[in-house]
């Protein structure tokens, strides 16, 4: 069953629906139901995926064995961000290319509601993996008699949740502007480009100081993008500035994604 097939239709009463309201009224209620339906369906599609299960179990085994999940230099954060990139790339872009979006939007569901519920479903999937890995870490610590630093573990989880929220929001924004899997391509190009660009500019500064001085606005732009979109999350301590940065930028990205998606022409049929 696809997300589109599972959505309620306002033009026909839902099973068990005993109300006799107008079709427009049904549409609003169905849209609210659809929010939860899409979240649940997105989550289900992710967690029953064999690749997802294998990847998460592997991270879980690392968490049991290493015991450094909540410590400095932990590999868990990059591994979970990578998982977010892998499953987040499917948020909206591929539905433009496959033609399923036309079918889905024939239902009386608000476009922003649909986009946000896909984002929420993806986040719930990632956070399910995070919870599993955290439990694995606790089990590993209990088995090997290492100290259980619950506060540290919770702060690590909070930081990873904020980090993945920002990643998913950016993928939703890039996906709402492009097709197919180009959202993750844009993300990676920006991530690599910002760092590589700063390196290249550093070389230019040494080789051609005069040109570098004229173009000094370029590294400032690169640093601004890098600091705002790819801010390094703290590992295991509370960092108010990072949490607010990640949350505010994610919300701005989501609002921009909704704005772009509402105006977007949805093509008929697959590419």
């Amino acid at each position, binding site marked *: 069953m696809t997300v589109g097939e599972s959505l309620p239709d306002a033009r026909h009463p839902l099973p068990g629906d005993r109300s006799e309201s107008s079709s427009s009224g049904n549409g609003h209620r169905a*849209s609210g139901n659809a929010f939860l339906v899409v979240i649940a369906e997105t989550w289900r599609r992710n967690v029953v995926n064999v690749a997802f299960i294998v990847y998460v179990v592997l991270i879980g085994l690392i968490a049991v064995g290493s015991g450094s999940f909540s410590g400095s230099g932990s590999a868990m954060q990059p591994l979970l961000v990578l998982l977010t990139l892998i499953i987040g790339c499917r948020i909206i872009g591929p539905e433009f290319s496959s033609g399923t979006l036309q079918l889905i939007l024939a239902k009386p569901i608000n476009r922003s509601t649909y986009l*946000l519920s896909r984002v929420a479903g993806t986040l719930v999937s990632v956070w399910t993996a995070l919870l599993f890995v955290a439990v694995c870490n606790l089990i590993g610590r209990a088995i090997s008699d290492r100290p259980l630093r619950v506060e540290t573990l919770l702060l690590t989880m909070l930081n990873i949740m904020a980090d993945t929220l920002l990643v998913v929001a950016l993928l939703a924004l890039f996906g709402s502007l492009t097709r197919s899997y180009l959202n993750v391509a844009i993300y990676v190009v920006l991530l690599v480009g910002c760092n590589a660009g700063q390196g290249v500019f550093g070389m230019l500064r040494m080789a051609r100081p005069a040109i570098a001085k004229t173009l000094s606005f370029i590294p400032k732009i690169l640093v601004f993008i890098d600091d705002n979109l790819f801010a390094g999350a703290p590992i295991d301590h509370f960092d108010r500035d990072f949490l607010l940065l990640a949350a505010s930028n994610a919300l701005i990205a989501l609002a921009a994604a909704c704005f772009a998606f509402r105006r977007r022409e949805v093509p008929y049929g697959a590419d």
Partner: protein
Amino acid sequence: MAQTDLWSRASQRSIPIWLIVIAVVVFGARIASKQIAEEPSLVKWVPIEQARARANADNKPILYDFTAAWCGPCRTLEHEVFDDPVLAKRINEEFVPVRVVDRQREDGENAPSVQELQHRYSVGAFPTVVLADASGEPHAKMEGFRGREAFVELMERVP
């Protein structure tokens, strides 16, 4: 049918106001958070220029903390070591603490004094902590943050 058309046009493409409101509120909180003055550091950092003279006068080694604003592990070091009252007191009593902040990424270049120290102690990563005597001779060095215990061990390596 007319109601369905109305739904399609008006409701299907509306943007949820609550999302915009929350985004504005959180962004406002982020701006306000930056305005709040940060608590003064527990470690009494000494300016680079005064470090040698202070170390000679007090007969203490210098603790150089090479850091950068964008460096995540540097924040962990700050949180776990320099914000710890016990360790901060010990650092203030036993060392002349000097913070050397790299601004290469933000400003394109560093101040000459920062550049000179980075070159002298071969700083290739952040954070780097160097313990040196008053003449500048290094006695111990830690690249990256390896935890509170490793930092305490580093401090004990100075005679």
